[in-house]
């Protein structure tokens, strides 16, 4: 059972997600679920960035760029109308393979487009490819230089999105079809699918948490932390530091792309505001508030701060607030908000619930064992 003990907090979090649903339903506030769902997808970006910054010790000020590559790729591929080619044989064969979907746009026009599954896989592959191409030269840089290089990458993606007709320029791309997963499950932002999507998004976040927690507790995780703490020593112990940093860069880029692709399906659209430098800075600020090498902190803050932002709590000072958060954290809580003594209570709730869960699970297993033997 010890192998799974890092997962108790995930189970506890899953219970809290259900409780949150019940509370929202009881207080007639289920409309909040829409923003929670969106925030959860943003949290995927933050989780990936936390692996890169907190564990591998590398900064990226271009993660909005990877989010956008994921989002825009699915947007372009799933909205590009292939009806003019309906007679061609290649479309026919793609159709017989089930890679083409047929739907109606807002005006009742029939649209033939690539299946969201194909678009999704293509988006992740493309992101990985671009991350490798950018990472190969850039990840050799350190500190400020790496920050500037990734910042430049983010800016390039922003200008491309804003300039290219293919990406809808300032309007972005809208009217994406729903993403049918399996059975009746679909990533769809319409009100009837609200509850289902709330759980889908959380499932994605918790799955990402499980994978990331496993990773940081593994041989690779130790190697990453060692690179962060003394690159020279890590290198001398047989760790290919360059390869590990690059792989983490690509992994975190792909996680950002997953968030981007799913959120774009959920919103049904994506626009250049997702690609601004301030978005990248926001992700960095959230990882910092969460405590850098603290996946749980990053995830919770990722959901919480994005939720507040989406609810408009910060008004038109949205970006200013995130900038201020970054400065404030660096000055007053460099270990993250959860390490500030007065705010430890938050941690306590998390720990207590995970501990309670551990007890319950342990109780159940002993009960099962006794009743069988």
């Amino acid at each position, binding site marked *: 059972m010890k*192998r799974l003990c890092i997962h108790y907090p995930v189970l506890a979090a899953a219970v809290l997600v259900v409780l949150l649903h019940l509370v929202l339903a009881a207080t007639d506030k289920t409309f909040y679920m829409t923003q929670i769902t969106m925030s959860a997808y943003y949290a995927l970006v933050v989780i990936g960035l936390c692996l890169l910054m907190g564990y591998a010790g590398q900064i990226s000020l271009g993660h909005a760029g990877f989010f956008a590559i994921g989002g825009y790729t699915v947007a372009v591929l799933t909205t590009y109308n292939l009806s003019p080619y309906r007679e061609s044989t290649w479309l026919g064969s793609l159709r017989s393979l089930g890679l083409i979907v047929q739907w109606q746009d807002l005006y009742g026009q029939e649209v033939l487009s690539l299946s969201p599954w194909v678009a999704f896989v293509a988006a992740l592959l493309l992101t990985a490819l671009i991350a490798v191409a950018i990472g190969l030269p850039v990840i050799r840089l350190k500190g400020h230089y790496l920050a500037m290089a990734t910042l430049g990458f983010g800016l390039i993606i922003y200008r491309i999105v804003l300039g290219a007709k293919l990406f809808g320029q300032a309007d972005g791309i809208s009217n994406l079809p729903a993403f049918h997963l399996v059975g009746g499950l679909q990533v769809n932002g319409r009100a009837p699918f609200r509850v289902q999507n709330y759980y889908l998004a959380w499932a994605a976040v918790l799955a990402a948490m499980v994978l990331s927690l496993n990773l940081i507790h593994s041989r690779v995780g130790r190697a990453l932390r060692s690179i962060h703490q003394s690159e020279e*020593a890590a290198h001398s*112990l047989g760790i290919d530091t360059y390869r590990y940093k690059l792989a983490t860069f690509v992994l975190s880029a792909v996680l950002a792309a997953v968030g981007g692709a799913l959120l774009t399906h959920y919103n049904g659209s994506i626009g250049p505001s997702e690609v601004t430098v301030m978005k990248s800075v926001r992700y960095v600020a959230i990882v910092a508030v969460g405590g850098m090498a603290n996946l749980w902190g990053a995830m919770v803050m990722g959901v919480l701060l994005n939720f507040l932002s989406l609810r408009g709590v910060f008004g038109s000072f949205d970006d200013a607030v995130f900038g201020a958060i970054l400065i404030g954290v660096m000055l007053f809580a460099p270990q993250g908000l959860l390490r500030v003594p007065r705010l430890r209570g938050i941690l306590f709730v998390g720990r207590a619930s995970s501990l309670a869960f551990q007890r319950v699970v342990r109780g159940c297993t002993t009960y099962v064992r006794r009743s069988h033997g």
Partner: protein
Amino acid sequence: MDSVLLETRNLHRSFGGVHAVRDVSMKVPVGAIKAVIGPNGAGKTTLFNLIAGTTTPHRGEVLFRGKRITAWKPHAVASLGIARTFQTTKLFPQMTVHENVMVGRHPRTRAGFLAGMLNLPHTWREDRETQAKALEILNDLGLEVYAEETAANLSFGRQRLVEFARALATEPALLLLDEPAAGLNIYETKELSQLILKIRDRGVTCLIVEHDMSLVMTISDEVVVLDQGQKIAEGPPSAIQRNSDVIRIYLGDEHA
């Protein structure tokens, strides 16, 4: 040739106008303790870095078991069986002592990113073996009581021992020790020499850069003396102690 573990041939490296290492050729036999001595700035650490791959030579070759490893990257050199410690101890300060040594198991284990993320049963088993092996090494060096201590909290001498343990965890054939006695008192230095002998007796060849003459003269089988980047003497400790060139560079002309 079988008995030579490491060989350098005319190894050369300069920084700007300074020739840090000039055409140094030497052989380290299997199972030996070989020391590299010389005054400050003689190029000892540079020589180490050239062997370990941290610095690339301008000329010359490094051979390990007869294989050319010149200018290999440090991680590749380490995976081949050459471990090192540093002049100023470089532990992973925020990790526990146990974790530090577990990192040392890296070249002997396999789990990659995907296996790590999925934490499959065999991945988990490998990690448990890593934990056990690291504990075993700590036990062996009498460090088990510090296993759960954060590395940064240990005293200087203990940190150095942990660095030893970490290097040994890679199961090296050759251990490069860069001034292992620096900053240790005479008792600690004595313990250290016992430890180095013990490591050697288990089949690990040692190459030591050292200032501490008592350590060098008591434990090493062979000594190489560097001065201004050049090899000026090589031989058993007793011969080196009588060598007039060596006495001159250490004590001055009037003693030679």
